[in-house]
């Protein structure tokens, strides 16, 4: 989705330049929420203030909003058929594989250091084995990151 945004707002509409959009993407990635939605909010704000931010947010959300409601209404009619159940078991198995690949890909860039690997394993274990709410994984990860940063600063 990001290359799509870039082509539209940099090349076609010239709302921001290349360097600005890369900055916006980078920061959108480090904030909570969806990257494409975050980028849209940033861009809207830059181009036309708060009302711009509201407009761009609505724009990026609406297709997702309505397409899923459409799918839902169709799905309700199909729900109780045996063949649909089987199709969905297949689809869920594929999703498990796709998400595993996403985790591995992200892991390759995010887990270069031993500390990162430990945080990832702890967060996985907390959620899967101890059934702890995933927000605690985020909070603990953030605190660990802060402690590691302070520790490095003291040493240097």
């Amino acid at each position, binding site marked *: 989705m990001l290359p799509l945004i870039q082509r539209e707002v940099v090349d076609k509409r010239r709302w921001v330049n290349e360097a600005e959009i890369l900055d916006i993407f980078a920061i959108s990635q480090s904030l909570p929420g969806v990257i494409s939605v975050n980028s849209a*909010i940033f861009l809207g704000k830059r181009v036309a203030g708060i009302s711009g931010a509201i407009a761009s947010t609505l724009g990026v959300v609406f297709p*997702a909003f309505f397409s899923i409601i459409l799918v839902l209404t169709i799905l309700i009619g199909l729900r109780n058929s045996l063949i649909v159940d089987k199709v969905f078991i297949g689809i*869920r*198995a594929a999703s498990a594989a796709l998400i595993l690949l996403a985790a591995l890909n992200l892991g390759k860039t995010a887990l270069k250091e031993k500390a990162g690997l430990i945080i990832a394993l702890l967060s*996985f274990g907390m959620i899967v084995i101890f059934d702890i709410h995933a927000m605690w*994984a985020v909070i603990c*990860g953030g605190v660990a990151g802060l402690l590691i940063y302070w520790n490095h600063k003291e040493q240097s």
Partner: protein
Amino acid sequence: MLKTLFFVFFRIGFFSFGGGYAMLPLIYKDIQSLGLIPAQEFSDIVALSQMTPGPIAINAATYVGYKSAALVGATFATLGVILPSFILILIIDSFFSRFKNNNIVKGIISGIRPATVGMIASAVIFFAETSIFEGKLSGFDFQKNLELLNLPALGIFVLTLIGAKKFKLGPITLTILAGIIGGIIL
């Protein structure tokens, strides 16, 4: 009901770092404890989200909201999941350059990022429990877990991995193929 939906998705929005997949365990836990929709149905919607336009997070919020309280529910849940980003960005944009180069922020993010890898990996387990395994896995009881195994579904799982890695097929193609194969062999 609407207040709960809004609050729950606001919290999800606030703690979801690292994109759509990472927020799955967050949503999972909340819809389970609130009994909004069954876990299996939620997995379906995530699977479908890969084929419909837009981010998974928005799709999931809209779906859960719609199922709980029709169009108003969908609106409240979706607003809830977006609002944390919206507020944060309006604040941050005013001191953009300072935020970008702040070392403390960088430190915190560098700890959250690996945590999200663990969260995404945990989503794999949730999905496996509604497809490759026929039920919830129990910690270290391998014997019992093995009995729950659905071999044809495991085959689809492995084929999807091969299709993505070796043949570079996209998620939409793989999802459709898996659905077709599932309908035939399961």
